[in-house]
């Protein structure tokens, strides 16, 4: 049986206690997207602005939720900030691949059931700390919530421009 230390790694708790990029951005120019997990009531708000080079110039996170959803959002914001849209999407795919085991098995929340193929070149860095979550299938939805919301946000930005 997996232990709590697999789930609540120190770096996760650190991001939970000290969330990075917490706040709001003016919309416009930024874009705002909400995501929520109906099973546990978690909400994530992603504010994102993309510059002319197709880079994530600014990103801020709002909402409330459990330590896993909050820390995943915090790490995500740190990881994609300054990245190009393509890089952000590749990172998302890599992260979702890390999480994809069992994701469709748990009483759906509509966050997509496609198992993305990751690019082996992409490095997850700190985000790998979230790998322990897959041992707690119920929590996978918490970890992926912010990423699904980001994907939706970037899609909306792409469509709008």
């Amino acid at each position: 049986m997996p232990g709590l230390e697999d789930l609540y790694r120190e770096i996760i708790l650190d991001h939970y206690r000290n969330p990075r990029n917490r706040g709001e951005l003016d919309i416009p120019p930024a874009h705002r997207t909400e995501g929520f997990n109906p099973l546990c009531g978690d909400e994530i708000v992603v504010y994102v602005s993309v510059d002319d080079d197709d880079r994530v110039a600014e990103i801020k996170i709002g909402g409330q939720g459990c330590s896993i959803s909050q820390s995943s959002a915090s790490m995500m914001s740190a990881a994609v900030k300054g990245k190009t849209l393509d890089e952000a999407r590749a990172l998302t795919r890599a992260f979702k691949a890390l999480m994809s085991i069992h994701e469709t098995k748990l009483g759906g929340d509509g966050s997509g059931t496609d198992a993305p193929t990751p690019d082996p070149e992409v490095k997850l860095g700190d985000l790998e700390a979230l790998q322990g979550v897959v041992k707690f299938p119920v929590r996978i939805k918490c970890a992926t919530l912010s990423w699904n919301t980001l994907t939706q946000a970037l899609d909306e930005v792409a469509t709008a421009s």
Partner: protein
Amino acid sequence: MAAALSTDSPPTVGLDVAAARADFPIFDARHDRRLVFLDTAASSQKPRAVLDAMTEYYETTHANVHRGVYDLAERATAMYEGARGTIGRFIGATSDREVLFTKNVTEAFNLIAHSWGRSNLRAGDAVLLTEMEHHANLVPWLMLAEERGIELRYLGVTDEGELDLSDLDAKLDGAKLLSFTAMSNVLGTLNPVRQLADAAHAAGAVVAVDGAQYVPHTTTDVAALGADLFAFTGHKMLGPTGIGVLWGREELLEAMPPFLGGGDMIRDVRLDGFTPNELPWKFEAGTPPIAEAVGLAAAVGELERYGMDAIRAHEQRVTGYAISSLQERFGDDFTVHGPRSIERRGGVLSFAFKAIHPHDISQVLNESGVCVRAGHHCAKPLMRRLGVGATARASFYVYNDTDDVDALADALDDAASMFAL
């Protein structure tokens, strides 16, 4: 009077929790740590007597019911119909014709909405619900509202977690149905069923009651409660999954059209029409949950053996201990949602602890074998009313005692140190 609960005279014999725990195989030593199961409000554990009754039924008697001439079929029918009688008597039904088996209480409310609702409600008619309903008593009405254009009204919830009755009469004015829960599965609130039923009847409305959290925990007398329709679910009262019960006043059920169509609910079928069967079979389409009915009757036997008054008194004691000991230990870090008075609540305790998210609480508690539920408990409108996304919820039954509360408290300490913000 809190919904006809017998709380004035303490039961002569208290509940022997150690003996009760021994009845439930899941609390066996087989497990690597003590199981502190505090999630009965979601589904109760099952005593050996219930499992044995079902196994024995399958091992010695099984055959399809109602149509067979041979011994097995006749005995299976007698057991199935006997279970109906046992369960009916348990809730004070005066006739077996009033006791319908469904697959769960959710189906029962869908039956009410489809059968009673479609034949009695026209566009513009009002149905009065409450803000503390379980989705089972919300979604069927939302679906009917979408289809038929009926108006849904809601009794509000006070800051104390009780129904706001200040505008009851105004909201009942013109309502054709009042449908509400006898006890909230989130707040533990025991609603004043009789008072609400009387008010509804005075206003000419039919009364449907969700007894899912009520029947398992206290003496139930559908007539004394004043209900016209009353539904509950087997798996929360020591019974198996796959069975629920809808009781209804005979004249009301008699006038209602069938819900599901198929075998057993018909008297005759022609290529151009059919004639429904009489009660209760009119509402039981297809092969019923036979073994489940046998198991639920055995569960009722167990509940009666403990004694419903003893169960109620026991849960009041454990709940009272939980509220006082946890607040003493954690002060303002521990907040109970819902009434604090054990006279006005059952053994379902939703709480907030520090700023720790319910999911994280439940996860850390699990490490000590303490099982509590975290989430919206299928009551999203109530969550919005409480201004939270989720709550952590502990609930008590015959196999819980104050030692479980202490285990919960210790585990909360672990959560506090892990998430010290």
